[in-house]
C-alpha cells in the first residue's frame, strides 16, 4: 500500500475520527484543556503518526526515529491520543489528563510521557528546538526528519523568525514546519489581533519553500509532507478551529474550555455519524 493509496487515505480518515472522539472524551474527563486547537491539528497529527513518520513505539528513544515537536503545546490532547493509539502507552492514561501523578501534563513534557520528543507549551520556542534537532541529525549523519507543528498565533513571536532565518541559513532540508492555520487566536481572529498575511510570501522571503494545503484533506497533507525540497519546508495548512464538531467550529470560545456531559454526547454523535 503506497501512502497516497485511496485505502490508506480512508484508513487515516477513520483514525482521525477516532482520535477526535478520544480528544473530546479526554478533555471532558479532565474538565479543562484546549479542544479547538486540538481538533484543528487532528488530521495533520494523524497523518504524521499513522503514515509518514518513521517511529517505533516499542523504542520511543530510538536514535534514528523521526522527531515531532508540537510547538503549539496546548494542542497536546491530539498528540497524546495519537501516541496512545500508536501504542506508546496504554489508552487508560487518556482518562487522566492533567492529573497530579499522571503522565499526561497540561502541556507536553518529554520527561513524563513516552514518545514526546520535546517539552513545549510556551509559544514560539518549538521551531528553534526543531532546528537544533535537524542540525544534530546532519552532524551525526542520521537520516531522520524533524517535523514541527506551529500555531498561527505563535507566529507573532519573534523567536519564530529567528529560527526561520537560522534554518534557511543552514539549508535544513530535513526540517518541515507545518502551520496549523485556523485563523483564530485567544483574543480573536489572527488578522484582527496581528495580521499574518502575506504568510507564504513572508516565509519565502526568509528562504523557505512553502506549500499551501487544506489541512483537513488527507491526500494533500500526505503529498505535502512527502515532497522533497532543497531547504527547509513550510506547509501552510488551512484548518478550522474545532474541526469536526459543528458547534465548536470557528468559535473562539472553544479555544480553552472543556465540553460538559451534554456537549460531549452531542459531539460524539456528530463524529459517529460522519462517514
Amino acid at each position, binding site marked *: 500500500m503506497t501512502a497516497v493509496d485511496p485505502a490508506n487515505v480512508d484508513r487515516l480518515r477513520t483514525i482521525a475520527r477516532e482520535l477526535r472522539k478520544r480528544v473530546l472524551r479526554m478533555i471532558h474527563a479532565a474538565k479543562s484543556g484546549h479542544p479547538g486547537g486540538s481538533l484543528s491539528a487532528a488530521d495533520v497529527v494523524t497523518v504524521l503518526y499513522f503514515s509518514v513518520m518513521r517511529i517505533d513505539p516499542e523504542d520511543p528513544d530510538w536514535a534514528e526515529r523521526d522527531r515531532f515537536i508540537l510547538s503549539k503545546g496546548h494542542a497536546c490532547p491530539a498528540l497524546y491520543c495519537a501516541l496512545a493509539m500508536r501504542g506508546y502507552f496504554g489508552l487508560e492514561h487518556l482518562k487522566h489528563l492533567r492529573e497530579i501523578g499522571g503522565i499526561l501534563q497540561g502541556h507536553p513534557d518529554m520527561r513524563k510521557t513516552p514518545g514526546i520528543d520535546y517539552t513545549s507549551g510556551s509559544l514560539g520556542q518549538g521551531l528553534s528546538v526543531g532546528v537544533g534537532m535537524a542540525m544534530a541529525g546532519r552532524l551525526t549523519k542520521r537520516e531522520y526528519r524533524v517535523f514541527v507543528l506551529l500555531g498561527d498565533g505563535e507566529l507573532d*513571536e519573534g523567536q519564530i523568525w*529567528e529560527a526561520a*532565518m537560522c534554518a534557511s541559513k543552514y539549508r535544513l532540508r530535513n526540517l518541515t514546519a507545518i502551520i496549523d492555520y485556523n485563523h483564530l487566536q485567544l483574543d480573536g481572529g489572527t488578522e484582527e489581533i496581528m*495580521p499574518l498575511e502575506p504568510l507564504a510570501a*513572508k516565509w519565502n*522571503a526568509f528562504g523557505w519553500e512553502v506549500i499551501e494545503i487544506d489541512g483537513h484533506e488527507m491526500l494533500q497533507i500526505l503529498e505535502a509532507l512527502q515532497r522533497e525540497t532543497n531547504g527547509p519546508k513550510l506547509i501552510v495548512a488551512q484548518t478550522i478551529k474545532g474541526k469536526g464538531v459543528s458547534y465548536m467550529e470557528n468559535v473562539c470560545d472553544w479555544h480553552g474550555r472543556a465540553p460538559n456531559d451534554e456537549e460531549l454526547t452531542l459531539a460524539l454523535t456528530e463524529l459517529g455519524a460522519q462517514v
Partner: protein
Amino acid sequence: MEQGIRRTIAYAAQMRYDVVRMIENVKSGHPGGSLSCVDILACLYFDVMRICPDEPDWPGRDRFVLSKGHAAPALYAALARRGYFPATELGKLRQIGGILEGHPDHNHTPGVDATTGCLGEGLSIGIGMALAARLDHADYYVYVVLGDGETNEGQIWEAAQVGAHYGLGHLVVFLDLNNLQFDGTLDEVLRPWDLSAKWKTFGWDVQDIDGHDHRQILRAVSKAKNRKNRPHMVICQTTKGKGAPVMENQCAWHSIVNLQQMNDCLPKLAQEIRRYEDILNAADVW
C-alpha cells in the same frame, strides 16, 4: 537644498573626526559601525529633525532612537555639534563622571531620547513613541536607526508586524546595511536573504538608497513624509568604517584594532573639516 546639503556634509565631516577622536581618546568603543551611520545622523540632526537643543525634552520634538546603540559615538558627536552639550564632553566618553555612557542612556545625556545598547529593542521603543504621538494628536516624527546585524533578533520582526498593523506613517527607520556584523558578513553569520522583500512582505514602505549620499537620504525622508499610513523602511547601503580608509569594510574594526592606525586617521579627517570653514569652526579640532 544645495546649501542644506553642504551643511549636512560639513557636519558629517566634523562628526567623523569626533567619532575617531573620542574612541581613540578613551581607547574603547566601536568605530566601524559608528562611521557607517554618520551621514544618516548628520542629515537627521542638521536638516531633517525638528528639535530644540535648548529644550531637549520639548514635547513637540521629533524623536530619535539609535537602536544600534554601540554606534553611540556618532550620536554623541551629532548632539554635541548641534549644541545639546559642550564638545568637551566628547573627551569624557565612557568615563566615570562623564555624561556619555558606552551605550546611549536617556537618563545621562541631554538629547538622548531612548536608552539602547542591547540590540533589537529600539524599533519597539520607536513604535511606542509613534503611537503616543497619534494618541496626543501630535505631529512629530520618530526616526530609528537599525543595525543590519540586529535584524537577526526576533524582536525586530515582532515590531515590524506591529508597526505595519498600526500603519505608523510617522515612523521612519533607517537600516544601516554595512553588511558586516561582529563575526563576519551578514551572509556568513545569518544569511538575511532579500531584506527589502522581507520588509515589504511585513507591510512596510521600503526604499533602497546609498546611505552615504546625503541627497538620497534627504530625498528618502521627503518621500516617506509624502506616503501616509505605512511605516517607512529606508535600507541604506553603507560602508563600515566609512571615511577612515584603514577601517573601511574591515570586520575587525567593529572594535579597535590598532590605536596608532586610528590616530593616523585624524589629520586627514581634520583636513576635511577645514574644507567647510564657512560652516564649521576649525578650532573645534580637539
